Every structure is written in structure tokens, then in C-alpha cells.
């Protein structure tokens, strides 16, 4: 599985993560499925736009993020208006590696791409992408390409 990010998209996620530090930031990934593929199958998605969203977890924003159902519907409408698909979500891990946590796994949906950006001391670092396994047991890494 591959996830292609336009250069502007990658930069927008990095800037959002740095700007929001030390809080977690989050947003929606909009684009197209270029070649379909499930977990373990070849596939390519291209993210051409992001929709930064407000982190609704104001009780623990340094280590949690939340996107409400209303925001999900708003992101779907934003994708529709651009003739794009809502492909997944990004969020930052302030002062943590760009690896999905157990909390991420427990709360993940299948099919969506989950991009994680590590931000260390306000400096954006590694970016990874993951998809939940069909049986919810773990994640499969998606290879990020920047175009």
C-alpha cells in the first residue's frame, strides 16, 4: 500500500503540527484512490488536499485528539464539493514517535489511512501512515511517497 502526498499537503501537515505544538493537531486527508487495494494488497492513494480540524479533546489535548461525527460529515461534504474522497486522517504525536499507539488502534476504523507526524520540541519530524488490519489486531504500514 502506498500513500502519495502532494508536496503542499505534506508541508501543510508539518506546519499544522508545528503550529499546534505541544498539543496534538488533526485533520482530514482528501484525495483519490488511484488503485484499489486492501490490507496486504497493492494499492495507491493520492492525497491532494487536507482539511485542518479543531482538536475537540480540550481536556487532554497534549496526548489525545478527537474529531466529532459532525466534523466527519463536514469533511465528507468538503471532499464531495471537490469531487474527492475522504481517504483518512492525520494527527500529530508531540514528543512521541510517529507510531500508532494502543489507543490509536483501539479507536481506529478500517480502510482509512492514518497519517501520524512526530513533532519534537516544535520541530516536525518523521511522518508515517498506517491502516488498521481487518481483524483490528494491529496496523499495516503504508509507504508514503511525496510528489
Amino acid at each position, binding site marked *: 500500500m502506498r500513500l502519495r502526498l502532494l508536496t503542499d499537503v505534506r508541508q501543510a501537515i508539518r506546519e499544522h503540527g508545528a503550529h499546534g505544538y505541544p498539543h496534538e493537531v*488533526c485533520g482530514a486527508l482528501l484525495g483519490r484512490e488511484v488503485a484499489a487495494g486492501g490490507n496486504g494488497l497493492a494499492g495507491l492513494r493520492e492525497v491532494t488536499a487536507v482539511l485542518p480540524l479543531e482538536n475537540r479533546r480540550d481536556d487532554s489535548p497534549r496526548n489525545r485528539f478527537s474529531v466529532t461525527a459532525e466534523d466527519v460529515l463536514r469533511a465528507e461534504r468538503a471532499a464531495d464539493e471537490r469531487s474527492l474522497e475522504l481517504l483518512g486522517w492525520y*494527527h500529530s504525536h508531540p514528543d512521541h514517535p510517529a507510531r500508532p499507539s494502543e489507543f490509536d488502534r483501539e479507536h481506529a476504523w478500517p480502510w482509512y489511512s492514518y497519517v501520524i507526524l512526530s513533532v519534537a520540541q516544535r520541530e516536525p519530524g518523521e511522518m508515517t501512515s498506517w491502516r488498521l488490519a481487518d481483524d483490528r489486531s494491529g496496523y499495516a504500514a503504508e509507504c508514503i511517497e511525496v510528489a
Partner: protein
Amino acid sequence: MAVKVMIPTPLRSYAGKRDHVEVAAKTVGEALSSLIAEHGDLRRHLYQDDGRLRSFVNVYVNDDDIRYLQKEATPLHDGDTVSIVPSIAGGTNPCHSGPGEEPAFCVKDGEKRIPRANPALGIKDAVER
């Protein structure tokens, strides 16, 4: 009662790639049970092991969240639309775990700890970053 159940994009591959199914049900609980009876792979994504709906699974009857109605006992009427809408959550593991537990990774007061190898989390090697 014939009702329409809308399937969100991330779950469509477990429902024959359909964006909705028609079921006969008198309550939301019955509608979801009918859905799962037909598409069993949906269960683990909608329900916890104890049988409760997962916290990030939101169910609406027409435009109303069932949490503010009668939850899964919410009655349905002919022609109603039941929508399953995701909410999204995540975040890092807590920096400090309980006694005897090592955090997966932690930076505190400039001290950098090393993540433990944890294949379940995709951490293959303990590498200082």
C-alpha cells in the same frame, strides 16, 4: 418496518461494497442486528467484546443521534434512515504508566527514553530518536 441503513465508507468493504442496505426492523438495535446477521464482519468494527456499541460509532435516525433518543431501543418507522457515522480519536500512550510498566516512549525534562520493540505497535527496533 422497512428502513434504510447507511454504511460509512470505511465499512463498505465488509458490506458487499454497498453504501446502504434495506432491513426490516422495529428498533435501531434490531436494524443493526439484521445488518450484522447479513454481514458478520461488521460486528468487530461496530461492537466491543462486551456487546456494547463502540464509543466512536455514532448512530443517527434520520438527523437525530440515538444517544439523545432511546439509544438502541429507539423505535423505527417505515421509511426511516439509520446512519452509522464515524467519529475519530487517537493519541499517544500516556507518558507515565503504572508501577512496573515502561512507557513506549517518553521525553521529559530533556531526558530521552528509548522505545521498546513492540511489533504490535509497529516498533521494530529500540532506536533513540
